[in-house]
């Protein structure tokens, strides 16, 4: 639509491209720095000489991690949590969103249920009562403490309700004409055409389960049962934070603790996200726009 660009316009274009590229690079620079440290020689990393490229390249920290049975165990617990929690979330999100997406004339109590669901999202009893309830259910220290309290991802239910409401009624009516009951309509009509939205909410819950650390920290008392993010939080983040007391302390702690190992642990815990990220990206932009910005 624009024919030719004048020279000042072209310069402005290049300035813009450079600024955007710079912003994007700044965005991942800290991550690259961390990766570089993880592949560097211990001494170079401790001395703070590593920037964006490994100094004296070394796999040592990764070979050590693989032999660290606690780290690997936590990794597996996190995978188990993602699989189990993701499946429960998927099932319950779909089962709640479908009835709630119906109009009032099709499902009289719809609005009452919807308000209860929204209310649970907006108001909570707070940390202590929540903790006491879970404590009394005797599921602490088990995987169930990590997957059951968040079994219904309310925000995702609302996203999916909004998506289901955009499905043309005629599709459902055609099914009902043929004598289909709501279960059949949901499974055979709604689910197949909702793949982008379902993929979006599923990926959100998988990422949320992988990234959660707090519930692991307070609901799991036995450190050998920690999911990965809790393990990292306790072993890497918390200890490195207390090492900030004075420059002398930093020197001392650096000598004992291992910068490259910590960096490598962070990298490994990022890997699953980086693996699914390219697949997610295709869907989530589309999915979010469909679910949240209407009209």
């Amino acid at each position, binding site marked *: 639509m624009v024919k030719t660009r004048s020279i000042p316009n072209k310069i402005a274009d290049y300035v813009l491209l450079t600024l955007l590229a710079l912003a994007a690079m700044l965005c991942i620079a800290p991550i690259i720095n961390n990766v570089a440290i993880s592949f560097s020689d211990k001494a170079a990393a401790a001395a703070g000489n590593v920037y964006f490229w490994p100094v004296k390249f070394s796999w040592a920290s990764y070979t050590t991690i693989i032999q660290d049975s606690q780290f690997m165990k936590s990794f597996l617990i996190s995978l188990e949590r993602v699989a189990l929690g993701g499946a429960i979330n998927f099932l319950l999100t779909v*089962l709640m969103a479908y009835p709630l997406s119906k109009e009032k004339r099709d499902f009289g109590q719809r609005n009452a249920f919807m308000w209860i669901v929204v209310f649970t999202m907006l108001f909570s009893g*707070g*940390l202590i009562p*929540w903790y006491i309830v879970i404590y009394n*259910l005797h599921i602490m220290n088990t995987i169930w403490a990590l997957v059951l309290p968040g079994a219904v991802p309310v925000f995702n239910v609302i996203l999916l309700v909004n998506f289901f409401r955009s499905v043309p009624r005629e599709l459902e009516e055609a099914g009902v004409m043929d004598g289909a009951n709501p279960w059949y309509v949901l499974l055979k009509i709604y689910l197949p055409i909702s793949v982008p939205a379902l993929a979006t909410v599923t990926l959100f819950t998988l990422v949320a389960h992988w990234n959660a650390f707090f519930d692991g920290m307070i609901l799991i008392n036995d450190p050998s049962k920690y999911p990965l993010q809790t393990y990292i939080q306790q072993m890497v983040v918390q200890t490195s934070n207390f090492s*900030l007391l004075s420059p002398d302390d930093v020197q001392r702690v650096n000598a004992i603790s291992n910068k490259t190992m910590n960096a490598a642990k962070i990298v490994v815990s990022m890997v699953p*996200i980086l693996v699914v990220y390219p697949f997610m990206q295709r869907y989530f*932009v589309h999915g979010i*726009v469909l679910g949240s910005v209407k009209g």
Partner: protein
Amino acid sequence: MKTRRNSFYYYQMLIPGFIFLIIFHIVPMFGIVIAFEKFIPAKGIFASKWIGFDNFTYMFQLPDSRQVFMNTVIIATMKIIAGLIVPVIFALALNEVRLTWFKKSIQTIVYLPHFLSWVIMSGIVINIFAYDGIVNAFLGFLGIQPTMFMASNFWFRPILVLTDVWKEFGFSTIIYLAAMTGINPTLYEAAIMDGASRRRQLFHVTLPGLSTTIFLMTILSLGNVLNAGFDQVFNLYNPLVYSTGDILDTYVFRTGLVDMQYGLATAVGLLKSVISFILIVISYKLAEKFANYRIF
């Protein structure tokens, strides 16, 4: 007649989810009575002594509580403002780019941090702002003395805001980019006909076209004034920066689960829940009235 039969199936579908909602969301709401008790876990909720508003009175007398409340509001407000401005500017800039591959690559990169946990991000943040980290190395290159950033009450809040923007601005950009695709292309054609430069198109077509979305996001962010970000603060702070960094959620965690003052912690949490709830309801009402927005 048909409707009634269908309702039966809808109840079937809702039951499992509602069982979980009741157990893990509704039942804990009754637990707020702990805020009015001298709660002793061994005695339980029913046998613990009822003390009325004593926990609240005590809370208001504590020197910490005022500080914590102010920290929360200040940090959250700074984050809300930065979190509104940066994504809008970034989306406007990205919208000017005509090279599709370049636009896509930039988006891919800036969305990424949103998907990493605050545990991972904090591990990285603490490293780069460490005394011997890359930020101090860069400052040293400019001839500036190294600083203990993570132990500095002066720097802690700016770092919270900066790293929050780092993690989330790319993702918020999606909403504005989506809103831009909704702007009627004939408006641009008309503007070009009238001889508008790209800068004028930006100010007279794109920005007005975005104003509803910007306004909506501003209203909705109101509800977050007491949410300063537990995961982030919890992973980044340490006792040295409690005076500027301790927020309501971290305070509830420490008084409740670490110091085991259950009644006090529940009272603080309840106050936060109630104020937040009121703010969210107000912001949703405003959004519905002025921007025609509904949650469902």
